[in-house]
């Protein structure tokens, strides 16, 4: 009992701070990854050969950029984007410094997830909307995004969890903080295995929670039963 109490006394603040930093970095970069990723996904769907506005060259170039973005290992992207971070948020270090590379790393991935979700929307629904005189913008907002919403929500939890892993790398490498940073610093650099194990256990729990929230939300909003 006393051992646990002593551990809590010593590390509770550190770990709470770590949880908070991790959630902020993951949440904020997930949000901005969608700000970039939704237009990418929509553009891919609209310009595909079977889309509303087929455009082979645009589709291929965008697809190529997305694939490029996805194929660069995160750790390299992180280093490459240090200057961009400094430019956009004034620093490459800390929580805010990590958000730029995290967002850029996730955006192409999110673009593909969104493309996937939207292409699951039945062509017949798009056609029905067209037959009532819907414009392309109306079809995107009222058909693709609305009908694809449950699937999009599932994608958000996948993205959140993927970024969760990237946050650990960013945290450890740029001193941005977070649970990954704590686990590495205490576990490997100071040989305090207990702190590392607790930090990793908290990560596992957070991922499970994120997945459950995503699943239940998607299920709740889906009106197909």
């Amino acid at each position, binding site marked *: 009992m006393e051992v646990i109490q002593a551990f809590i006394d010593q590390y509770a603040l550190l770990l709470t701070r770590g949880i908070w930093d991790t959630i902020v970095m993951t949440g904020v970069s997930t949000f901005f990854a969608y700000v970039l990723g939704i237009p990418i996904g929509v553009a891919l769907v609209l310009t595909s050969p079977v889309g509303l506005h087929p455009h082979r060259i645009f589709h291929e170039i965008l697809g190529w950029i997305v694939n490029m973005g996805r194929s660069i290992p995160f750790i390299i992207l992180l280093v490459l984007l240090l200057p961009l971070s400094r430019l956009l948020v004034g620093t490459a270090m800390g929580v805010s410094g990590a958000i730029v590379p995290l967002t850029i790393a996730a955006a192409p991935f999110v673009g593909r997830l969104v493309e996937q979700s939207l292409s699951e929307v039945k062509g017949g629904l798009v*056609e029905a*909307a067209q*037959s*009532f*005189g819907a*414009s392309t913008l109306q079809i995107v907002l009222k058909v693709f995004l609305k009908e694809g919403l*449950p699937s999009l929500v599932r994608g958000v939890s996948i993205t959140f969890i993927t970024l969760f892993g990237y946050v650990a790398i960013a945290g450890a490498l740029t001193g941005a903080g977070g649970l990954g940073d704590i686990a590495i610093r205490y576990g490997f650099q100071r040989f305090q295995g207990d702190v590392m194990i607790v930090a990793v256990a908290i990560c596992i729990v957070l991922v499970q929670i994120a997945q459950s929230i995503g699943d239940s939300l998607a299920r709740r909003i*889906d009106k197909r039963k």
Partner: protein
Amino acid sequence: MIEIRHLTKVFSGTSEHHALHDVSLTIQDGEIFGIIGASGAGKSTLVRCINLLERPTSGRIIIDGVDVTGFKGRQLHEFRSSIGMIFQDFSLFQQRSVLGNVTFPLELRHDKREHRQARARELLELVGLTDKEKSFPSQLSGGQQQRVAIARALANHPKIMLCDEATSALDTRTAASILGLLKNINKDLGVTMIVITHSLSVAEKVCDKIAVIDEGKIVEQGLTAEVFANPQSPITRELLKNDKLSSVLNGADLDEAAGELSGGGA
């Protein structure tokens, strides 16, 4: 009046496919006009050209004297919103309630919410689904879903309604009730209907006139009764023969026969 003039549609892909060849038709206001033909004959393509879901390769679509063939952008959207359409698979929005489906065409034109809902409720009453407005399509039977789709198609007060195999996914009895509904809408609201079907009994029951299409060409057209009584083209004769056969296989005639055997009592 709908005038289709020398309509041709070529699908260019890996190989060129002539889906429609020089099709000309005139459909008068208030008619129920049937389009029949075998699978792949070009029925859907022809009807989808009327509201320009399919762009004609050549030829003209003239509605009430206005050539709409070149319509684009806002003009095209406005034109399409004046034509209702229903589909074989209903094509209802799964994530919208019944009411939300019927208000959809009005939302596109930014109608006021109260106005949209009032109009939608009026139409749900017309199709007999007042108590379902809060349901979602997945909770409805096929026949109910098609009624919602009909209400949705009527939301904008269309003068024309396009029906592509609207009853093909339904059992005989449900199909009959949907056809009855369409007929009433035609009679009471004066909506001109273009009805695609490959069932001749459907055509016989509801259509004032029919056109028979084969390999993208109109092979025969005229008053339904006349075409049925005195088919001119071998294609039509073939269709009539097959339809008799299929109605026997469907058990329609067998039911009648069974009824007679049991003394006709019911």
